[in-house]
Structures are given as structure tokens and as C-alpha cells.
């Protein structure tokens, strides 16, 4: 992950002093990514919205404790990751059947971003179908496996960054990712058979 740029560190300093606008600028390139991580982790947009907002407020509150030797984005994603895990743990008590979360429909107020530049409607539909299948399969993974698939395969973080975000060794990331991909493959294959 890139080291702190001059701009970033001055924005961090201003945020530490309580400047909301500086903080907003600081997170501008991250907030969509954060929202998407939360969305994939939680499986629905409403919870993703709540958790992202909560995580960002938490980050704003805790920015005074941020040690500038580490990367801001890793620090931020760690907060988001923990917020998602906390949310899942809290809500598991109420709703045990988390595996059956359905894909959000287009009827919701949120819309999927579709690059429809060169795609025919059929291709777009096919792509959506594949995405639907993958999304559904990801939701059936365990928390640990889902998290690692989201960070590596959806958000393309490096092994090193993931090890920092979820606080484990790179070796653990490597082996956990291989198991998670194997499980994901099995789930998709089973879904296709059905």
C-alpha cells in the first residue's frame, strides 16, 4: 500500500483537529470501496449503508489515535472489516439463517453500476447472471472465507495488505484464500448442477 502522501498527511492533521471537510476528502477515494466491501460482507445494501456510515464515523472519531507510520487505507479498511464482523455477530443472534440472503433486486433504490458501453443486452444479462451466481455463492461462504474472497478477488488487495487488515500472517492469507476459493468453486458447481 502506498505510503502517506503530503496531501494525505496534511488532510489527516486537519481531520485530527476536527475538520469534517478534510476528513471527507481523505475518504473520498475509499468510501465506495468501503461500501462495496460492506455490501458483499453483509449481503444487503441497507445494512451496508448503516455499517459503512458507522465505520466512517468511528474512523473520524478515532483518527486522533491513527499512527501515521502505518498506511491510512489499511487502517481504514481494518475499521470497516471489524465493523462488518461486529454487525454480523450481533445480528446472527436474531437471524441464524444468514446463508439464504438474496441478491438485492433492481427495484431497490440502489442500482448496479453497469458498463453497458459495448455490450449487447444479452451479454449484459449473461454477465448479470454470472454475477448473481457468484454473489449468491459468496454469501454462502463462512465469514472468514467470504471476507478473504472479498478483499482479494473483489477488491484486489495484496496478500500483505490483507494480512494487515485481518491481522494475520501472509501464510495464513495464502492458505485461507485457497480454501475459500475451493469452497466457492464447490458452491457454484453445486448451484449449477441444481
Amino acid at each position, binding site marked *: 500500500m502506498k505510503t502517506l502522501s503530503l496531501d494525505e498527511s496534511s488532510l489527516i492533521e486537519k481531520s485530527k483537529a476536527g475538520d469534517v471537510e478534510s476528513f471527507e476528502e481523505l475518504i473520498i477515494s475509499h468510501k465506495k470501496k468501503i461500501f462495496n466491501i460492506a455490501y458483499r460482507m453483509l449481503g444487503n445494501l441497507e445494512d451496508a449503508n448503516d455499517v459503512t456510515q458507522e465505520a466512517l464515523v468511528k474512523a473520524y472519531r478515532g483518527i486522533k489515535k491513527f499512527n501515521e507510520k502505518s498506511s491510512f487505507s489499511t487502517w481504514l479498511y481494518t475499521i470497516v472489516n471489524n465493523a462488518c464482523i461486529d454487525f454480523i455477530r450481533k445480528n446472527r443472534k436474531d437471524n441464524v439463517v444468514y446463508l439464504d440472503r438474496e441478491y438485492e433486486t433492481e427495484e431497490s433504490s440502489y442500482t448496479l453500476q453497469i458498463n453497458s458501453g459495448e455490450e449487447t443486452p444479452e451479454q449484459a444479462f449473461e454477465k448479470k447472471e454470472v*454475477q448473481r451466481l457468484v454473489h449468491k455463492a459468496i454469501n454462502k461462504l463462512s465469514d472468514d472465507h467470504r471476507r478473504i474472497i472479498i478483499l482479494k478477488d473483489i477488491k484486489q488487495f495484496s496478500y500483505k495488505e490483507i494480512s494487515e487488515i485481518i491481522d494475520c500472517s501472509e501464510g495464513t492469507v495464502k492458505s485461507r*484464500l485457497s480454501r475459500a476459493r475451493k469452497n466457492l468453486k464447490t458452491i457454484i458447481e453445486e448451484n449449477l448442477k441444481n
Partner: protein
Amino acid sequence: MNCKDFDLYASAYIDNMISDEEKLDFENHINKCENCKVAFQNLKIIVKSTNNIEEVELPQNFSDELRQKLEAENTCKSENKFPNKIKILTGVVAGLLITVMSLSLLNNYLINQNMDKQMDIAKTERNNNIKENSEFKTESEELTQERKVAPKTMSIESFDENNEAELDNTTASEDKAKVQGEIPKENKIKIVNPVITSILVLGIGFFIYRFLRR
């Protein structure tokens, strides 16, 4: 490598997180093993599909909502600074009050104990005084009786002496009455004082607790 190691090797191969030696090993294996080759092709497709999952857009009012929350956080912070000081101050005051109360409680107890001792001493001393006085009374009575017989000029003196003796007697009886009257009074103070103080301490503690909870 063999088919058992396939998952770990395949996953790391896709991410290019594998040594050159392992890479060669893996490629050799999938060229020989048809099952692993198909499995690898499928895994690659799935990883690619996952990579291509499109991002969802942020909700429309996301930034406005966030700004409101962040600003609320700021006002909360500035509001909190003052109550925090007050909380610390009330905490200190409460601690001091409790210490003072418990000290006074202890003090009262010690004073009462001392007073008991002093009173015991005073009682015995006064009893002795009373005895002495009564002895003196009889002596003076005897004296007056003797003086009755004495010449008239002496009667004035004896009258004075008599008066003095009477006065002494009255003071002695007053002392006696005082001693008798004071004992229950002191006892009352001894019983009531710790009770009142402990009620006060509890009451103040309760109010501080309620204040802090608010």
C-alpha cells in the same frame, strides 16, 4: 506435487504468489493430470468472475447523511468536554465528602468513647464529692448544734457557715442531678450521631450516583 496439494498451489499460482520451482512443478502436474487441469480451468473462471463483479453505487444521500453524522460528532465532542470536567469534579467532591463523612463518623465514635471514659471518671469523682458533701453536712449540722449552745456573737458566724454548707449541699445535689440528667443525653448523642451521618452519607452518595448517571 500431487493432487492433494492442488488447492494451495492453484490459488497461489493464480495470484502469482508461488516460487518459480513450485510454478514449474504445478504446470507439470496439470499437464499430466486431467482432473486437476479441469479443476484449475474452473477455478480460474470463478476467480475471474469474482474479479469482475461490478461495484454498486453509493446510495444517493450517502454523503449528506455522513456529513450530518460527522458534524454531529463534532458538536458532541465540544459538548462533552464540559460535562467531562464536571463529572471529574463531582467525582472528586464526592470522594472528599465521603472521606470527610467517614472521618467524622470515626471521630464521633472515638469522642463518644472518650466521653464515656471521662464520664465514668467524673461520675465516680462526683459520687465521692456527694459523699464528702453529705459527710460535711452532718459535720456542719453537728457544728451548728454545738454552736447553738455557743454565745450569740458566734451565731452570726455559724449562720454564715450554715449557709455555706447549705449552698454546698445544693450545688452537690445540682451536680448529682446534672450527672443523672446528662447520662441519657450523652447516650442519645452516641446512638443518634452515627445513624444520622451514615444516612447523610448514603443520601449524598445516592444523589451523586443519580447525577453522574444522568
